[in-house]
């Protein structure tokens, strides 16, 4: 990691996590023809991002929300997605999750182009999204929430014992120690515990990418700490984690990689180690950074 430090300053566009030969030649990145994009693809290998987006465009009617967005997400790393309100973060992940289709651009999963038309397609690839709100049913218990919509059945009947066992195993695997019983209704859990359940649900399905939209926005200090530790553990277990957050402290603490959206354009994807807190804030607010880390569309 540290070996790569410094390389970013010479790039016109700081896609720093990937100093491989695939990165140069960025000037054509909005061209979508196959021949061009093929050369842009990162080589398949150990360092291949599990998810690669290139030149993503999305408009809602006349509103051009995403403008040629590139993003690389790697297994075992926490990639923070930051940007001001309305920058397009939620739109980007909803496209990844299959809730919206992108208008144009390349969506590569494990180096191969894939078609994601609905949430089920994304789930089938191993992509799970933890939404900030509206994700759990208060009246159902932890097990039922974790298996919601994907209940295990045996000859048509709910297989409660197996579901409970697997829910416990998953929570154990994440070293979650705050839940008294997996049979308590979610209504009686604290905010942090609820977020934990939502995250555990996302990793239950051997998922490869977990996307978290503002997971700590509604939490107190101690619970934020718990959830961030859990986010870190997910990545350490080998999952690719995308963390959307407004809280710069959270991001600097837990992320390996920071991707900055500014007015629908990806202005930088940098290693956390290579930037300072204030540089990231500057990227978010102005779309460019002064010393060293420069915005792309200067």
């Amino acid at each position, binding site marked *: 990691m540290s070996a790569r430090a410094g390389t970013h300053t010479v790039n016109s566009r700081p896609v720093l996590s990937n100093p491989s030969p695939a990165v140069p030649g960025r000037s054509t990145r909005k061209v979508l023809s196959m021949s061009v994009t093929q050369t842009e693809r990162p080589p398949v290998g150990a360092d291949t991002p599990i998810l690669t987006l290139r030149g993503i465009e999305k408009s809602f009617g006349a509103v051009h929300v995403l403008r040629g967005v590139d993003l690389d997400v790697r297994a075992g790393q926490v990639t923070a997605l930051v940007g001001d309100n309305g920058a397009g973060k939620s739109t980007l992940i909803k496209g990844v999750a299959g809730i919206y289709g992108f208008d144009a651009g390349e969506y590569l999963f494990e180096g191969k182009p894939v078609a994601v038309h609905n949430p089920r397609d994304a789930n089938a690839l191993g992509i799970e999204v933890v939404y900030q709100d509206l*994700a759990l*049913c208060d009246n159902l218990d932890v097990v039922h929430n974790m298996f919601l919509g994907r209940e295990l059945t045996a000859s048509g009947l709910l297989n409660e014992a197996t579901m409970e066992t697997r829910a416990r195993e998953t929570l*154990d695997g994440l070293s*979650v120690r705050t839940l008294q019983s997996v049979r308590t209704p979610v209504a009686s859990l604290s905010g942090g515990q609820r977020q934990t359940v939502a995250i555990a649900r996302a990793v239950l399905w051997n998922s490869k990418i977990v996307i978290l939209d503002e997971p700590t926005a509604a939490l107190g200090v101690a619970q934020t700490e718990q959830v961030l530790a859990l986010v870190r553990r997910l990545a350490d277990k080998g999952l690719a984690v995308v963390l959307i957050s407004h809280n710069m402290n959270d991001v600097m603490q837990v992320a390996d990689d920071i991707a900055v959206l500014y007015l629908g354009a990806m202005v930088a994807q940098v290693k956390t180690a290579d930037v300072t807190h204030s540089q990231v804030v500057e990227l978010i607010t102005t779309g460019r950074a002064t010393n060293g880390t420069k915005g792309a569309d200067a």
Partner: protein
Amino acid sequence: MSATETTTEPAVAPRGPQSLGAVFEDYRARIRGGDVGALPALAGVIVLVLVFTVLSGTQFTNAFNFANLVLQGSAYAVFAMGLVFVLLLGEIDLSAGYTGGVGAAVVGKLILDQNLNWVLALIGGLLFGALVGLVIGLLVSKLGVPSFVVTLAFFLALQGVLLLMTGAGGTIPYRDSHLLAIMNKNMPLWLGWAFAGLTVIAYAALGFSRRLQRQRAGLPTPTILVWVLKSIAFAAVLIAATAYLSKERSRNVFLASLKGVPIVIVIVAGLLVVLTFLLTRTAWGRHVYAVGGNAEAARRAGINVARVKISCFMMCSMLASVGGVLLASRTNSVNPQTGGSDVLLFAVGSAVIGGTSLFGGRGRVLDGILGAVVITVIVNGMTLQGQSQGRVYMITGLVLLLAASVDAVSRRRAAASGRV
């Protein structure tokens, strides 16, 4: 088993067989958390029975009146069981009463005019209910019209349909012996006992097998004592009821003997078992609770919310048809008021008094029956006391208000007990 549990430090509180005390503690915690379940209804039944026994003595407690209670309450119970499905969604079906009335009329007409046999006619009645539920469900889930309005419209329209079918002041007679038997005949004593015995065995076996399953999976299991006590209590209630219904209750034995378990009990019990099974043991049932708890979360989890809603409205309307047939069987005919007047209000009241939440997401099929028992005991007991219909309605209204308040308060408690 316990050795591995302690060494691996499982995340979720490790427990071996839970002691009776622990089980009781869990239960108390649930109640404090706002999940009062059947408790208010059960307490209500006990208090009401005691009060009326003191006031009316054997006039209330005699076997004849007990059987009468069963017959009075069973139709409300069936309507209420159907309404539970709709209430679980957080919706309402105001048309259920007249859906039942028209359903019963359809059954009567099919027999009378089309000479269909009673089974086919009943199927016709169920199909009618399914159709009504389908249309209501489509309007609610696809068009987004509030169920209150949709079913109010159906309430009015079906009332008109029933009036047209019966003719003003007219009736559609029920003459088929099978349909009349439902509310007017009892099982032979031996069959009643066999039925009770089988039910007890099934209850105990089911509880035991579920316990075994959890144990095999290495999950925390309550001590066997819980199963034993539950099974004994269940058996005691069933045996007592069967014994009481097996007593001679004819006022003039020489004219006609009257004893045995009313046939309608088998129907209500069968519906209870099948519907509870659907709601608690299938993925569909889980989705009903999910949609009622948080429709958006259900949608994001890939559940087809519209389909779940439509199926619940269909379930409610089909059960309403069954309830309508029970009403018609009791009065030997369908008239313009079958399923009208207080039927719907008592049915909704039953579900809520039994513990089903008006806010959606919480409730059981059994609630419909428990609440129907409460309401029927009030109506029956007060009528025996010679109280006017006006007072009966006032008291029933008060009890419903009480139940709805308990619902609202326990909901607030559930919200307050977590999410700090």
